[in-house]
């Protein structure tokens, strides 16, 4: 049996998925990155290797997410792609009629506009992370509610409190204020969900034509409160795919399949990387005024990759 592995290493979570030749998802893992992408990837690989069918051969590997390059050199990826393309590929496989993808992750949020199965436009949050998963996490922690119950609280609200979602700092002080004047928790949380959605629509999705079918994915899609706020604000049905939190990884696996169908042998180093001692080190190149920050990646004592240089001198060194 042959399969393709997709790895999506984001700011908050590290996701893996394995698909077979027909594009069926065989298994997937969702793990928290905890700021240590190397360890997270190793851990996820170890977990997923136990779920794989016996005698499974990995024919190709794709990586995506903000640590895609790091993950790519670590496992030996055949394709390293940005998360927008990866998400779009994954989603359109399951929803050929999708025309809008709303994706809210740990630190970024994006909207992808699809027409006839092709990405025609996209946008990501620019200078601010207001309205992403990290902020919800933070607030859940502050209120002492487990993040997976956050949405349910919102749904119980009868009339939501009005909270400004423009900036997380102001949103938080708004929430504290509402608490102090005696609003109940459910209403405040519902208000927060609405504020985040308003902010997303006014910011990331500004000027984009949101047509059905609308797919909502990324870690935040687990939050029913946000889903219902989107439905309220847009007046349209929002679908949450079964694999909403690992769609990037699934997309990366599809990209690997696409790449390998072109021929060639995989660069995948095998599941042995679980036990390798990988480390990174950053250094500043002082040879010109660009002062690039170079990342040095080594396995054991051997340096296997450099990146981050503008001129290519370090990258071509090995």
């Amino acid at each position, binding site marked *: 049996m042959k399969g393709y592995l997709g790895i999506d290493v984001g700011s908050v979570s590290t996701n893996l998925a394995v698909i077979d030749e027909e594009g069926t998802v065989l298994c997937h893992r969702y793990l928290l990155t905890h700021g240590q992408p190397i360890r997270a990837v190793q851990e996820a690989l170890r977990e997923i290797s136990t779920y794989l069918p016996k005698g499974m051969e990995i024919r190709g590997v794709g990586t995506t997410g*903000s640590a895609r390059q790091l993950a790519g050199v670590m496992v030996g990826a055949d394709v390293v792609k*940005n*998360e927008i393309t990866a998400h779009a590929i994954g989603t359109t496989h399951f929803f050929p009629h999708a025309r809008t993808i709303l994706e809210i992750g740990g630190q970024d949020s994006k909207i992808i506009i699809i027409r006839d199965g092709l*990405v*025609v436009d996209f946008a990501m949050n*620019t*200078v601010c992370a207001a309205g992403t998963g990290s902020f919800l996490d933070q607030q859940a922690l502050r209120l002492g509610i487990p993040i997976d119950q956050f949405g349910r609280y919102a749904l119980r609200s009868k009339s939501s409190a009005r909270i400004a979602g423009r900036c997380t700092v102001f949103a938080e002080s708004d929430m504290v204020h509402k608490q102090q004047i005696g609003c109940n928790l459910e209403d405040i949380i519902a208000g927060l969900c609405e504020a985040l959605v308003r902010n997303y629509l006014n910011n990331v999705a500004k000027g984009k034509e949101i047509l059905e079918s609308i797919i909502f994915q990324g870690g935040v899609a687990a939050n029913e409160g946000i889903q219902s706020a989107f439905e309220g604000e847009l007046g349209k049905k929002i679908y949450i795919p079964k694999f909403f939190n690992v769609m990037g990884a699934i997309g990366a696996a599809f990209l690997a399949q696409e790449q390998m169908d072109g021929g060639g042998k995989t660069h995948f180093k095998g599941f042995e990387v679980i036990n390798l001692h990988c480390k990174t080190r950053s250094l500043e190149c002082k040879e010109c*005024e660009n002062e690039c920050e170079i990342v040095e990646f080594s396995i054991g004592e051997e340096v296997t990759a450099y990146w981050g240089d503008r001129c*290519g001198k370090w990258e071509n060194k090995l």
Partner: protein
Amino acid sequence: MKITVPHCGQMDIFINALCRKIGPDFVIPPKTSPRTLDLGIKYSPESTCLPFKFILGNFIEALEKGADTICMISDHGPCRVGMYDIVMQNILREMGYQFNWITMDDTRILRSYLLKFDRERRKRKVSLVEAIRALLFSWKKMNVCEEMERWTHKMRPYEVDRGETTRVSLECLRLIDGVTDLKELKIAREDALSRLANIEQDRTRQPLKMVITGEGYMVINPHANQDIERRLGEMGVEVTRTMWFTSQIAHAMRLDLLKKRSKSKAIRASKRYLPHNIGGECNASIGYAILYAREAYDGLIQLLPFGCMLESVAKNILRIVSKDYDMPILTFSLAENLSETTITTRLSAFVDLIQRKRKGREK
């Protein structure tokens, strides 16, 4: 008198050429580096736009290097550059620097420049012929530099070793910077062209064609736009940009009337979407999108410093242009906290989008 100006594209080569011939003494600020930006951020109002921070940083470093006179352009339009000079002077004086300040008021008033130039010339006892010759030589040199840059844009998507085109092109610019007369310039130009032509290439590739437009400072300065031309080139895109040192001067002097892609043509083309010329590069950004869409370019990237009012207007109109002409447009709002991953993620997604669109059409 030791004059300094902010870095702007390859303008330092022009100024070097001119002042080596007829003076006055110029202090070119050190190349814009992370330190420049750090200094700029430290002393600028937090909410000001990115060019302000870079330029202030340039001035601080130039003053450290011994400059005593600062030359800075200004404008009367709605662009914030109109307030740059007063605010910058105040900041620098509060920091304890002493200097003279020359405001180059409104780039469209050419006569006053020429008068200033002429006064300076007489003071320095440079003959008129000599001065005109020096100006023409520097102008020609600048044209050769920009020709090199255009070639670099064309060659980069074909390069086999990543970074080679950039390296060769830097060598060529240094070569051209060093020449002192027209004869040498001609030789250097040919030498540079052959060096570029000798770069190992893979001509089987089919690069996409993209144009970069938007706010002038961001378009012209690789240090401000995170080296977007190089990044795109290395992703296999042939880029061109709408803003050049010579094109700006030529536009101000109305010397570009016959050029195919002149700024005035762009402004005229924007009329259908924005009848009133609101200043800055706003109308030109819109117009260029139309001009390049007609030339069947695959995509356009608009650059603006975060918070730029004029380009934000253009951004919203560009959405309609994008639809009308079926050309994908990506807008980049740049601030100092943008990480490298943020840039490459968006750029590569944009390149993917266009590539898949092209593949879809071929099918």
